[in-house]
């Protein structure tokens, strides 16, 4: 299958995502922020980085890139969109996902391994996992504290839209001991139609034992499996 990887000025996980996609045996195409063509991608990854320096607010400027218009159309047509780190921030800024990502409660950047509990398996990204599986995936961000009002948080839980929660290494609840202070320990969520995932940790950095974990590879495989099962994905917007 074909993963499209968005490249904004200031994106730096694009190369790592490409590496992970290719390691998983799939095709990666780079999508330049000034273009609108998604080049037939089956899944669009919005990778990590500091698009536009993350000045003002992380993701605030990137959401208006021409490419994002196509990504939004693609998402509206049930295309798979996967925002990682800065990509998650962009998705929230673009209102494809509810809530916002704010400065880590420590006010410090954090680069460290984290453990994620899979909270829903009802998405293309987590379909091959079991609920409660714990994945070791590193974080690397300064603005990853997930914030939303109580109503939104309740709705996310009620609709089974929390994809991942930070947990302790042994899988027990983190109870607030997260790298960023996210509300309800949330590390990733999906949209209502479950085709858009945003997550702060970096699965593309956890695809080889040599790098400390290969748990991230499971997510890439899940996406690929779901695409090959459901067959053709919506045609990417071209303009």
């Amino acid at each position, binding site marked *: 299958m074909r993963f499209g990887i968005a490249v904004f*000025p*200031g*994106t*730096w*996980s694009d*190369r*790592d995502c490409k*590496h*992970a996609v290719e390691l998983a045996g799939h095709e990666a195409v780079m999508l330049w922020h000034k273009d609108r063509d998604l080049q037939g991608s089956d899944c669009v990854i919005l990778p*990590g*980085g*500091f698009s*536009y*320096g*993350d*000045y003002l607010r992380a993701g605030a400027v990137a959401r208006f890139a021409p490419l994002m218009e196509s990504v939004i159309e693609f998402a509206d047509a049930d295309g798979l969109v996967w925002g990682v780190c800065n990509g998650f921030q962009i998705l929230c800024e673009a209102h494809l996902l509810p809530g916002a990502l704010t400065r880590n409660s420590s006010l*410090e*950047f*954090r*680069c*460290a391994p984290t453990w994620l509990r899979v909270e829903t398996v009802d998405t293309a990204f987590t379909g091959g996992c079991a609920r409660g599986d714990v994945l070791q995936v*590193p974080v*690397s961000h*300064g603005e990853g504290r997930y914030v939303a009002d109580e109503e939104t948080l309740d709705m996310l839980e009620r609709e089974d839209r929390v994809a991942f929660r930070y947990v302790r290494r042994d899988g027990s609840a983190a109870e607030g001991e997260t790298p960023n202070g996210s509300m309800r320990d949330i590390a990733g969520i999906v949209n209502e139609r479950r085709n858009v995932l945003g997550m702060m940790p*970096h699965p*593309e*950095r956890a*695809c*080889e034992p*040599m*790098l*400390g974990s290969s748990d991230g590879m499971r997510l890439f495989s899940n996406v690929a499996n779901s695409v090959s099962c459901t067959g053709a994905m919506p045609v990417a917007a071209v303009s």
Partner: protein
Amino acid sequence: MTSVEIVVASDADLAEVALTRAEYVHLVDSLGREPNRLELGIVGALWSEHCSYKTSKPLLGTLPTKGPRVLQGPGENAGAIDIGHGLACVFKIESHNHPSAIEPYQGAATGVGGILRDIFTMGARPIALLDSLRFGPLDEPHQRHLFDGVVAGIGGYGNCIGVPTVGGELYFDESYRTNCLVNAMCVGIVEQGKLTRATASGPGNLVLLVGADTGRDGIHGASFASVVLDAGSAARRPAVQVGNPFLEKCLMEACLELAGDPRVVAMQDLGAAGLCGSTAELAHRGGCGIEVDVARASRRETGMTPYEVMLSESQERMLIVAKPEDVRSLQAVFERWDLHSDVVAVILPEQRFVVRDGTDQVCDLPLDLLVDGAPLRGAPGPPPDRPKPAVADAAAAPSWTPDEALLALLGSPNLGSRKGVYRRYDHQVGDATVILPGGDAAMVRVDGTTLGLALATDGNSRYTALDARHGAMIAVCEAARNVVATGAKPAAVTNCLNFANPEHADVWWNLYDAIDGISAACTALDIPVVSGNVSLYNDTGGTGIDPTVVIGMVGVINDVAGRCTAGFRDEGDVVGLVGPVAAELDGSEYQRIAVGVNAGSPPHLDIDLERRVHAFVIEAIEADLLHSAHDCAEGGLAIAIAESCLLGDIGASVEIDELGDAKGLINGAAGILFGESQSRFVISFAREALVRLHELAGRHSVPLRGLGSVGGERVCVTQCIDVSLADVRCAHEGALIERE
């Protein structure tokens, strides 16, 4: 020739540009006339210590810079070595001490920005950063402020641009109370055929200035780094530059797109002394001249004078030399990255440095005089008598038990865990960091190959303070040991020499000795020096820093799969010591903490033994005989064992015969446990490897002995130390945490 006023420089004029009267007289004699103000400012910048190396250049010539791997030695923006597979590894270390003392966040951030540009100017993609930091005692609020600001600034720049900061070092010592040190190292990779040089050629070729608009940033920054900090330093504060890592990321990607492109004749970053330093060096290297038109440089502010445009140190700017017919198509590459560019200069056939402001010619200087004409400075006096500092009175030590001493050392700011620092740095972006920070050298793998690069910085100024030559030798050895502990072979060195005011004879001779020591050690270990940086005048109000030699080392391992790490691994493994056991406490961290002094002679170094020990460890790792290897450095044997336990999350129990039946820290026991004897590694291995390792050690004439075994949840030294791993971890991880 010029419409600009010519003045005979007053003492105040000379002070502003940091030239001496003698230098001025030499300038006037060589020119055959008085310079105008702009010319004076330009000469001041280029003749500053920072740009001209007028004090250190005569000394640096003795460094060994040749070797089969060396593709580019000192002289370019960075050094380059051949790592096989048609690839070059490009690297350099640089200081940003003075700016960081004034504004720690921005000073450190722009230091990282500067060293990154040195690497991608050569066409190489930066793949790793390291930072070597020195502050005064951490319990002082101002030092904590500097430390926090510098760490945030390094992370702020490196994290944003997406280059991992994989290692470095951090020391706290009285001598840095008024002068912190911030040295940053960057390592990049480029196909050898795309290695780009900063040598202008082709009269008539045009020079593009790309990137940030020019503002009144850091005017006189180069001179600023070449004078002693004083009360007036505050007045020079407009010198503070604010970095824009986002812009640098765009600049980097655009420049890398152009690496190896035949349209690019040369590339040169703008650093110290801004446009005037970069254009002059570019032309000088190519044996031609250059004419700059300041009116063509885009400004961030209105009303800037030619003087300000030429001397501005605005960050994130780059020069590209190209044939006139290629300029338009090159500009298109930059526009894709939303980067603005202006044609600001033209290459001249004759070696002149001409500046014009539109139609007015405002400067015309012989290029050779400007770049190479600064009168060199020799020794300010004969070597002073340096009485050996008295040996410390061990009786002054507190009556610690060995357990207490172990925890006190592990919990001290110099030996404690650096996790609080490196977790604020993205050390994993690039998917290449195969040995993470926290052990000895970090290792990054090289994309598309099985190669790994082991990277380390090292430099213990307690040793150089006691004996500059000997301490510098140890710095080289210790950096090499960090690299060797991973299984990589040391390949080349970059170095940063941080010293006080060299106009004092003792400082000058320390510099002389330190360079001599680096040369001696690098020659003996066969490791060439390919780049470096000198930072002098780290001196405030008459108090200078201890001589500080920072060695940055790159080692190569052919297959990352064979790398070794520092943590103990398997229950039941043998713990072994490679190298001697002696009781040498002088210059040690134990001496600092227990006795509160730095005295005596630094530990003995047998450079030939050092070389053999390296060969032994590398061969043992290659033969897959070791489960861990950790160099034994500050804090000595007991600390090295405890660190390997922490890294492996498993205990160990050892016996050191020399301790006899000592029950406290008396009769040399402290020296055996915590002395910092050189040329040592703590290793662990399966019992079955014992015979082969002894055979190998015999072949290399290297002392090797078994000390005990890996296992359990305690750190034990028979009859002396017995502490739980949890207590050890708690002490170690708490070392940098602020105590209210």
